[in-house]
């Protein structure tokens, strides 16, 4: 059930990207999709009743959650912020040239 909720978040992002007219709203849609995928990866690695994957002194053999998806998600988060920086820079430049964020008015190319 949790996976479906996570997927619902993904769909909201996809809907936002496909429907919205404002460039910044489209960017937000992409961010929402990235959030949902990160959440999904961490959910995949979650183990009920386990602890964070950090070995502490004195503790013997403990039950850890899956550390691999966590490493992947750190990478994915950083990729997300890098993409965001570039796309916001592009948005600002597009605004500079067209003086609008409206994608239906940004139409010099035929598509």
């Amino acid at each position, binding site marked *: 059930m949790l996976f*479906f909720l996570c997927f619902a978040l993904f769909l909201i992002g996809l809907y936002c990207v496909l429907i919205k007219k404002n460039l910044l709203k489209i960017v937000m849609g992409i961010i929402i999709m990235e959030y949902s995928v*990160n959440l999904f990866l961490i959910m995949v690695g979650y183990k009920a009743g386990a602890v964070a994957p950090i070995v502490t002194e004195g503790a013997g053999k403990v039950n850890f959650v899956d550390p691999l998806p966590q490493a992947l998600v750190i990478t994915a988060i950083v990729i997300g912020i890098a993409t965001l920086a570039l796309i916001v820079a592009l948005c600002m430049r597009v605004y500079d040239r067209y003086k609008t964020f409206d994608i239906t008015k940004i139409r010099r190319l035929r598509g």
Partner: protein
Amino acid sequence: MPEIELYLLITLMIVGALVAVHTRYLISAVISLAVVGMALAVAFLYMQAPDIAITQIVVEVLALVILIIAVSIGKEVVDIKGKRETLTIGVTALFVVIFALFAYRALADLPPFGSPLMTVSQHYVEEGLKQTGSANLVTSILLDFRAYDTLGEATILFTAILGAFAVLRKIGRKAK
């Protein structure tokens, strides 16, 4: 339900995302998005991923700042009204519904929540400290077992920043 907190958090995230998509004011959209991000960080913490929670919070703050810069550059504080063409909406809705139905059937095949397979990770959990010397197993994966990924990730950041520099240049072509 055992994971009632998680259900609440994800519901909050969905509500926040819906608000962010539908609100009229761009600045409120950005702030609702930040709510989603912060809830995500708490959810990470709940799922025993403190590393990710820290990263998510700090990155979220920066993303918020960057988005606010972008919003405040334009004079359009209010979102642009109206949708794209009706045909596009129809096709999109149909596509999203088909996609969702297919996903609904497929996601049922996932292993149940809270019991990962850990085919490969078992090795990291058992041998990680011994083989890399790092007590934080996430770091041991990030910088030793899969350090090559981290190189790529650092390069992506570099690429994006170089790209942002290039895109924000005032003059692209030299005048003849």
